[in-house]
């Protein structure tokens, strides 16, 4: 038994403006050298918890903290400001906002300077930490030129250079494409083996961490510690409660949960799945008339080619998924298709008419676009007005507007919030509202840029239900995503982009048969992985 490196005793945090505490009486003990996954739905206080561990609470942030946090046996209140960073290092979720310098080496040096590391030592530590994450050739690079994955590796290098005992990762891969995320977790595997560091990962998805992590602590909606122990027991014994909480269960657990009797032992990884998973893939459905057609579509920003001669036809009633590595031009393509940007070269026809000839308001009644960041689309002060906005532009009767708005709010699980300010909603509510406000006009074509990004299981399922429902009523959906499971379950067609070109355009089940998916930073959906694993037995 190792001594605990982090221990919390009756830790509670509450914010002034909110009645319910963000964290409620947390007693957790984390041993040196162990690996933990802190799970919980969005809004369960996971971020608040990390801020407690590195001493930002109660010193720097607003809010009341009671109870104690001990790091290496010493109360965080007794540490000098900045001293805890010698023990605890954090990699944050957003690759863009965790840096304050302009170049890679300066950023790593920043942390070392804070620790008053002598100059001679800095050189050595910078070289060493860059090597650990595989960025040694980027030492002099500008941070702004790095990709999302490289930025996360840099964030990791910055922390490693400071030689902490504990490494905390706050949803470190949520901004990354599947392959980059996998590479990142591989680095963590290696670090763990090499350095024997204590690792704490904060997540609401379990799937990619099952191999790395042994222990888990699960927080519920009220900020209470619902479970602590091994990850396996947490997942398999509390699966149905976790599902209710909105935690993304591993695929195998979810599948088994559908059919299993309450007493049977649930699997956690795909290879433990003892039956062939059911295929939930959509039927091919009918494909309607041509809706959108692009010809030789190109777009560049300051000499850099973002989109390179794309030829594409989109038909009515399709559910198209656009996938590919970060920075391959997916968002740009979607903005051009929606008529938000104009192409530098080439043309787009909507229902046979050039996009440029459409009147803006007519165009908006045909194409809806949901941005990645829901806040960008909010233009009014209340949830009701937000949904009603587009309807009011069409001179509908007041009563009719009210009826449609309440119907829509119900559909998106937003009832009772109609007087709230959109900016004060939770992550998931904001996302659902932004989609609700956009789809209320019942457009024929709906384009969505990573609508499930950062969302917990419940919001994702609700959103996908709505989209599938619209699709079954004849609407066309075009969705950018990194989630191959969603592609597998919902898409009737998938476009794979690489370096500004559409490289593959097929049905998803044909794509899975393609051998070189990792070239496009894609992975197989769990259903296919499970099938492949079973294949030898099946053929017997």
């Amino acid at each position: 038994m190792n001594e605990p490196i982090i221990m919390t005793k009756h830790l509670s945090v509450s914010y002034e403006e909110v009645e319910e505490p963000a964290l409620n009486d947390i007693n957790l003990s984390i041993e040196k050298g162990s690996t933990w996954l802190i799970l919980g739905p969005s809004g369960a206080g996971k971020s608040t918890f990390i801020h407690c561990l590195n001493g930002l609470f109660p010193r720097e942030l607003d809010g009341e903290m009671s109870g104690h946090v001990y790091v290496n046996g010493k109360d965080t209140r007794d540490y000098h400001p900045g001293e805890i960073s010698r023990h605890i290092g954090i990699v944050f979720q957003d690759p863009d906002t965790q840096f304050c310098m302009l170049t890679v080496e300066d950023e790593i040096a920043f942390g070392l300077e804070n620790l008053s590391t002598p100059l001679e030592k800095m050189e050595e530590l910078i070289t060493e930490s860059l090597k650990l994450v595989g960025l040694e050739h980027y030492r002099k690079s500008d941070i702004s030129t790095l990709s999302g994955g490289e930025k996360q590796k840099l964030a990791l290098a910055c922390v490693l250079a400071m030689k902490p005992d504990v490494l905390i990762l706050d949803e470190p891969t949520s901004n990354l494409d599947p392959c980059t995320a996998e590479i990142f977790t591989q680095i963590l595997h290696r670090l763990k083996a090499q350095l024997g560091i204590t690792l704490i990962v904060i997540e609401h998805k379990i799937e990619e961490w099952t191999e790395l992590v042994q222990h888990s602590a699960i927080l519920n909606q009220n900020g209470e510690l619902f479970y602590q122990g091994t990850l396996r027991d947490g997942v398999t014994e509390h699966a149905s409660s976790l599902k209710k909480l909105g935690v993304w269960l591993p695929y195998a657990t979810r599948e088994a949960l559908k059919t299993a009797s309450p007493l049977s032992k649930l699997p956690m990884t795909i290879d433990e799945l003892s039956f062939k998973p059911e295929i939930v893939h959509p039927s091919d459905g009918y494909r309607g008339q041509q809706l959108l057609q692009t010809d030789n579509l190109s777009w560049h920003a300051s000499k850099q080619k973002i989109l390179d001669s794309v030829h594409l036809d989109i038909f009515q009633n399709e559910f198209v998924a656009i996938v590919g590595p970060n920075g391959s031009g997916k968002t740009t393509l979607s903005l051009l298709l929606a008529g938000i940007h104009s192409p530098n070269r080439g043309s787009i026809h909507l229902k046979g008419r050039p996009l440029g000839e459409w009147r803006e308001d007519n165009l908006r009644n045909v194409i809806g676009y949901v941005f990645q960041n829901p806040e960008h689309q909010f233009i009014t002060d209340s949830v009701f007005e937000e949904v009603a906005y587009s309807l009011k532009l069409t001179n509908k009767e007041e009563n009719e507007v009210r009826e449609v708005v309440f119907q829509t709010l119900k559909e998106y699980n937003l009832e009772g919030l109609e007087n709230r300010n959109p900016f004060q909603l939770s992550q998931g509510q904001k996302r659902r509202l932004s989609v609700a406000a956009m789809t209320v006009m019942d457009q024929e074509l709906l384009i969505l840029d990573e609508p499930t990004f950062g969302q917990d299981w419940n919001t994702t399922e609700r959103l996908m239900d709505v989209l599938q429902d619209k699709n079954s009523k004849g609407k066309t959906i075009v969705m950018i995503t990194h989630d191959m499971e969603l592609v597998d379950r919902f898409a009737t067609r998938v476009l794979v982009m690489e370096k500004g070109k559409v490289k593959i355009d097929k049905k998803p089940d044909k794509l899975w048969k393609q051998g070189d998916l990792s070239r496009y930073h894609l992975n197989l959906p769990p259903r296919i992985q499970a099938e492949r694993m079973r294949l030898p037995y099946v053929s017997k």
Partner: protein
Amino acid sequence: MYLNDLNPSVKALTIAGLVFILAFLFDPITPFLYLIFVIGVTFLFGRFNKKHYLLYFSPFFIFAFGMLWTTLAFADAPSNPEQIIAVLWWEFPREDLFIAVSLSLRVLAFAVLSLLFIFTTDMVHFVLSLIQQLKLPPKLAYGVLAGYRFLPMLKTEFQQIRAAHRIRGVSQAKTIQGKVGQWKRLAIPLLAGAIRKAERTAVAMESKGFTGNRNRTYFHQFTVTKKDWLFPIFMFTALGLVILVSVKLGYFNIYDGEL
């Protein structure tokens, strides 16, 4: 030896000092000679993209020229109207022309001094040197650096918000009231996003042990060496010589409220 290698704080203080002195001089010859001298120094001892220099210089030039023209056109009645200078096919009172040329050359002299600094100084090094030499509090200085990274991000975000509003059917406002409302609608998500980003960055900085106090080491160490002193000595001596020449030629004049 290049201007780029000088200590940024010494360079900045020298430039500020020169601008201060030049602001008191009011004759056409001193700024003209000094202008040529500064451009010469910049091109001889600076490492930078020469094309960009012209690009940045041109707006100042246009501004100075506009100033020259307006000062001439709206000049007060001269006290010695009989003294006339002919430029090409125009004739100007000598006094008015002198004032106009002095003013516009002064603007240009300020401009080339600023450009000398901007083109040969790394922004980050300047801020770091401000902390180390001029005792700027690190809390403020690193805040400025983080903000510097934010500017391009804010621009992208602004464009995204505008596009998002456009497709929601927010049309161009025509009344002043409508325009105010439109700006408010754009500003709220932009500010909300900026505040959230700033907070995240602040939390990230603090979690890396940043406390804002001076108790830290520096990866880029800036010191003031003997060669750094050469720059102010050189620049101020040159200004003195230029003033001497202009006195000898009988043009020298100290600003005395004339316009």
